[in-house]
């Protein structure tokens, strides 16, 4: 135990199936011992599953159920100068052009559920916007579908 709380194990030392420490904090904690980022640019990472749960404080579901795998997320340029931890600043950079939840997850190397939690938190803090789609099928009007078909034809 350190003076800031339990010492988080270095993820590199953990075998994949170690028990997760569950926290009950509502807001995402800033990890006191930040896992050393294996940042190789925007290539997808193959990290152990343990690390993402540390990042999200043990939460596996987002507060916001508007987030589907294809939902687009956009970050304002101003968000680049916010003081954010490693994963969150990467999301803000990735989303300078609208990117889907799935793309955020792929580039961060985290599971979809973790990406949703991080994105939902960033939206609450008004650092990203989530591009709403209407009720499940009502936005798929004939005219949108025709636009999609015409767009595919034109490829």
């Amino acid at each position: 135990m350190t003076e800031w709380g339990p010492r988080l194990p270095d993820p590199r030392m953990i075998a994949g199936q170690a028990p997760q420490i569950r926290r009950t904090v509502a807001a995402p904690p800033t990890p006191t011992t930040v896992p050393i980022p294996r940042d190789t640019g925007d290539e997808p990472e193959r990290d152990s599953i343990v690390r993402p749960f540390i990042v999200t404080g043990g939460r596996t579901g987002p507060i916001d159920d508007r987030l589907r795998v294809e939902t687009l997320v956009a970050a304002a340029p101003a968000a680049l100068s916010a003081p954010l931890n490693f994963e969150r600043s990467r999301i803000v950079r990735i989303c300078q052009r609208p990117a889907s939840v799935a793309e955020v997850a792929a580039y961060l190397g985290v599971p979809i559920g973790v990406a949703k939690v991080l994105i939902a938190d960033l939206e609450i803090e008004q650092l990203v916007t989530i591009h709403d789609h209407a009720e499940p099928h009502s936005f798929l009007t004939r005219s949108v579908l025709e636009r999609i078909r015409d767009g595919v034809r034109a490829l």
Partner: protein
Amino acid sequence: MSVHSEPRAVASAQAISAKIIISGGFGVGKTTFVGAISEIEPLTTEAAMTSVSEGVDDTSGLESKTTTTVAFDFGRITLDESLVLYLFGTPGQERFAFLWDDLIEGAIGAVVLVDTRRIEQCYASLDFFEEAQIPFVIGVNHFAGSERFEPEEVRDALGVPDRIPMVNCDARDRESVKQVVIALLDTVIVAVG
């Protein structure tokens, strides 16, 4: 070296997205199909499905979880500055795809790819989409050296009703893949009316 060029258009801050699902048995060519039409190299992401072990002594305050991660590939097409289409391949282990409704939810529809050498491998997909009443088309993916069947022969073998389009498909060929996607969109447009 990527053969994918820069996207023609960049999605604006008001862009919306849609998706179609590419399904079929293991090794049938889902990722190839996605890659043939995607503006980016297919990306891989994963979903964690967690089950909590029962009967675990948790006096220590720790929970023991078994986490299975299921990987799937996807691609993207920016159709114009306000519309992005995603293609999501179902996970390689077909049985996991249907545990994860998030992937399918809200999709325009699906493409079920069939390998005529292993025709039974698409049954799970066909059953799932029919059960869920999700529009789909069948792409008969031809592998080099395999016997070439007429779509109607495959239709008979699969027991698929006439209302479901069945098209020959070469998952490596962009034009062929486009035609399959367009067939799906046409099906959905007709149904919307």
